[in-house]
């Protein structure tokens, strides 16, 4: 499973695993309902085990970020690896999210 969603204090946590390529992102798109519904709260993406992301994965983050800005929530992205950091830099996504490293 590429995305695992849990409730946590004050919001939601989404744990991403493996490769978020186009087919995985299309599948994950069907599963982000609980995150969109809770976009008035804090949503934390744990990317410790995320190996790869393509633009369709980035779109997933942006969709949730847009919903959060409408509903007044917050999106935090934790522990992206160097390769994913590069992709965030190339697309300007680095400035759109709160990015934390543990």
């Amino acid at each position, binding site marked *: 499973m590429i995305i695992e969603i849990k409730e946590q204090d004050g919001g939601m946590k989404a744990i991403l695993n493996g490769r978020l390529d186009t087919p995985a992102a299309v599948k994950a798109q069907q599963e982000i309902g609980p995150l969109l519904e809770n976009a008035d709260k804090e949503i934390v993406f744990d990317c410790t085990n995320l190996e*790869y992301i393509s633009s369709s994965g980035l779109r997933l983050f942006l969709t949730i970020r847009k919903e959060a800005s409408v509903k007044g929530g917050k999106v935090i992205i934790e522990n992206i690896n*160097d*390769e994913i950091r590069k992709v965030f830099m190339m697309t300007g996504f680095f400035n759109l999210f709160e990015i934390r490293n543990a």
Partner: protein
Amino acid sequence: MNEKTDSELKEGIILKRQLTLPNDIKTIPQLSEFIEGIGEELDMDMSLIMSLNLALEEAVVNVMEYAYAPGTQGNVCIKTTANETQIEFIIIDSGIPFDPTKKEEVDITMSAEERPIGGLGIHLVREIMDTVNYEYKDNKNILTLSKKIK
């Protein structure tokens, strides 16, 4: 394939590979395997393999999603040629003429609220590759991507 889709790289070729996929995004993992295999064979570092993988995924997904009318089967062919210093990928489909290089550049300084959802794929291709060239010939879209590897 005919000489019109032949590589521009002529001298010192050390690798030639070809992959044909149907217009089904579920086959993208096969593309990753193909790129990883090439990367290992050419002794590239993981970071370069990952970047090439990403550029190729974006370019090929673009064909899979837009070249053929919904419900129509079609193929996308990826021809790879490398010499010691450069790698070239020629992506060929026989779908509707579409030049992705004509797509407007996304403004990556926009806020999340203003950002359109799409357009990032071709932006990533441009960012990663050194050259991106499009031609339409013999009823085929031909997109040539190249990058220095050494």
